[in-house]
């Protein structure tokens, strides 16, 4: 980050931003939480506030996911029969989630996010073991 001094100046690019962007895109496309890497980077290193970091990650995810979806459509790896009911359920879920984001205290949200990272990390560990 670091582009807050002057609104007319393009945001200062630093090497860490580039690495974080590359890594997040890479891991995200591979299906294991590239988003959490970007949020960890933004909140812990670039000192962006938790909710703002989450917003940045949402935007960041869109072009990355587009690449992945187009690629996987051509490979016929996307299965609509499973995808559509999940999307249908997710819409009320996300409305509830955004409702909470607007009301929850930042420090609590950060802790919840941390807890979610720990649980996800453990799940990924178990999952990769089972794949072997």
């Amino acid at each position, binding site marked *: 980050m670091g582009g807050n001094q002057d609104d007319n100046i393009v*945001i200062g690019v630093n090497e860490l931003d580039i690495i974080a962007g590359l890594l997040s895109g890479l891991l*995200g496309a591979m299906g294991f939480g590239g988003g*959490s890497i970007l949020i960890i980077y933004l909140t812990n290193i670039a000192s*962006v506030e938790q909710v703002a970091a989450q917003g940045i990650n949402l935007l960041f995810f869109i072009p990355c996911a587009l690449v992945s979806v187009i690629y996987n459509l051509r490979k016929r790896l996307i299965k609509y029969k499973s995808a559509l009911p999940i999307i249908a*359920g997710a819409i*009320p879920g996300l409305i509830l989630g955004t409702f909470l984001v607007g009301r929850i205290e930042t420090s609590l949200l950060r802790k919840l996010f941390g807890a979610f990272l720990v649980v996800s990390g453990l799940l990924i560990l178990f999952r990769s073991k089972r794949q072997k």
Partner: protein
Amino acid sequence: MKKHQLVLYGIAIGFINALFGAGGGIVAVPILKKSGLSQKEAQATSVSVILPLTIITAVIYFFQGNLMIKDSLIFLPFGFIGALVGSFVLNKSNNTVLQTAFALFMIWAGIRMII
């Protein structure tokens, strides 16, 4: 897995993805596998599930004033390149070493954020 079960899991996925601005995919992949998809299909389908949710969530964040569009821009081109490489790698290998390293990193970062 039955349709209504997928819808119920969907609620949780949408909720988590909106609350944390991330993480929907981590929940979606194992559920998609349970519904009978292969690892690669599950990973690919999970992205196609999270994409529309993320667009809707981002719009709501925008109206809540939680979207810093300018600050996001710098990450987009690099993320784009990373995603291109990642899609390619996903289809070439099943990288458990990278996955394990990433999982450990997440656990470490998560503990730091809780404390």
